[in-house]
């Protein structure tokens, strides 16, 4: 956990409105676990004032520029251009100076024994699942169910396949894979693999539907959540979600940035989740 004052290695649009950025980060990989995130900022750039949280897609090494040099370690994020900060990010280039705080938060809990693992991703929600998949593939049979509105929202599937992950794609408009919701596919898989463990990340309506299915089939579920964040380190208390058993009298608020972003479904108060329907982009 550290503030990297560093540089961009590359920044490319990989699908309309979606970008992949590699950032120089020596020593990052050893510390990072799947499900963790970073707080990103363009160095010395205000506005936007606050850092933006992004999941860690993967960490890796580029071959050194010359034989005697060490390889270049990077962290890779995938992001969707939605508002002011990500619009500025989309215009950055190799060599631009950025800051990265991380790795932050609690990753996925991988202590359960091997077996069937079902990863459910919605749109940009697939980000934390790639590192998860790469950690799981050796001892588990891993499936990725990937959903999106259109084919443009389906990212990085071939990279999952390259890991040996079986992938199933569904889109709302049928422009890629099966037409319909990812939960349809999930239901079939849960019927087929009753002992499966589920890991999900995506928009709140999807997470709620996934949770319903997991309750129905009694499958353990871990979800990765997104909340507005100011600090990312548990100091501002801006990013809380309600824990299970929360009442006005006996409140239980959990910081998404430190207790999460990955939570076991049974630790959350699902009734309070996703009421935050603010659209952002308004602060520019």
């Amino acid at each position, binding site marked *: *956990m*550290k*503030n990297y004052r560093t540089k961009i290695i590359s920044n490319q649009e990989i699908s309309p409105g979606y970008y992949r950025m590699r950032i120089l980060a020596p020593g990052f990989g050893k510390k990072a676990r799947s499900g963790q995130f970073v707080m990103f*900022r363009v160095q010395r750039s*205000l*506005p*936007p*004032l*606050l*850092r933006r949280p992004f999941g860690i897609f993967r960490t890796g090494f580029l071959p050194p520029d010359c034989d005697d040099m060490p390889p270049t370690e990077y962290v890779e994020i995938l992001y969707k251009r939605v508002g002011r900060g990500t619009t500025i990010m989309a215009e950055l280039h190799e060599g631009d100076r950025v*800051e990265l*705080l991380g790795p932050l938060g609690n990753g996925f809990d991988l202590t359960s024994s091997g077996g069937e693992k079902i990863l459910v991703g919605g749109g940009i929600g697939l980000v934390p699942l790639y590192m998860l998949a790469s950690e799981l593939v050796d001892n588990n049979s891993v499936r990725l169910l990937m959903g999106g509105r259109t084919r443009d929202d389906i990212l990085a599937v071939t990279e999952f396949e390259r890991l040996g992950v079986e992938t199933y794609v569904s889109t709302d408009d049928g422009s890629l894979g099966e037409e319909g919701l990812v939960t349809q596919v999930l239901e079939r898989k849960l019927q087929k693999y009753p002992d499966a463990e589920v890991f999900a990340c995506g928009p709140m309506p999807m997470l709620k539907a996934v949770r319903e299915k997991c309750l129905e089939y009694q499958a353990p579920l871990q979800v990765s959540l997104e*909340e*507005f*964040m*100011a*600090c*990312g*380190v*548990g*100091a*501002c*208390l*801006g*990013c*809380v*979600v309600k824990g299970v058993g929360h009442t*006005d009298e006996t*409140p239980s*608020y959990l910081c998404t940035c430190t207790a999460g972003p990955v939570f076991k479904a049974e630790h959350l108060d699902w009734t*309070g989740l996703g009421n*935050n*329907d*603010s*659209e952002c982009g*308004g*602060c*520019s």
Partner: protein
Amino acid sequence: MRPDQTTQSKRPSLAVEIAGIRLRNPVMPASGTFGYGEEYAPFLDLEDIGAIVTKGLSLKPKAGNPTPRIAETISGMLNAIGLQNVGIDAFKKHKIPFLRTLNTPVIANFFGNTLEEYGEVAERLEDIPEIVAAELNISCPNVKQGGIVFGTDPKAASEVVRLVRSKLSKPLIVKLTPNVTDITVVARAVEEAGADAICCINTLTGMSIDIRTRKPRLANRTGGLSGPAIRPIAVRMVHQVVQAVSLPVIGVGGIVRAMDALEFLIAGATAVQVGTANFVDPSAMITIINGIEEFCIEEGIDDINQLIGSLR
């Protein structure tokens, strides 16, 4: 760690004194933006900053407001955390052990939901030896007086300060709200009531609306505006308060860079607090301290106290 001040003979002295507490330099975090200190330990050496100021503490744990609690605005942010905190007892049990290990003064920010509660928290703070001073936040609604904020009414402010003073022998810093017609009236009232120092400003009440959903961006509808956007207002109020009272003043509001902190010091603040900027850059305070030192060297100032209040 910042390079040792003793090794180079020409380095200016940054030490200041507030109500009898000596600080190695005038830079400390603003309450609520630095957790209980430990959250930021991975990012900076807590022994390099002037003091640690805790999240606002109350008698019982406080749950805070529903979410969303924060929204970004232009050069600022709105927050309606709702003073969520672990409560004074849990603070003593779980947070003090870490703070005790540090050679940095700890200032406890606190509040009450009622006058009585203010008094009770003060009593408990008196009993925690690791706390060198208390910072009284009077920006909470006074339930008995129809929800007006203690800090907006000089009489209510005076009353709460007097009560707290009677329970607390430690230095008492009173933190003022900027949402008033004349901050000097409240400043004078709390001075008379026994405050040892004044901290200003807290956040300005603001609101932001999502035009698509037509709902306020914060679940609480309104929230406190902080960050660089409010700095000119904070500098003005600090300057006013410095003129109005003879207490030391801690300046806070929108400090991001050393030059921002210097504005407050020149206006007469004996120390400054850095709030929102900690979120932007967890080592902001270190950069600010180094920048203040550089400025003193450039300007041939060998003691920061020469700079304080040097406004022409």
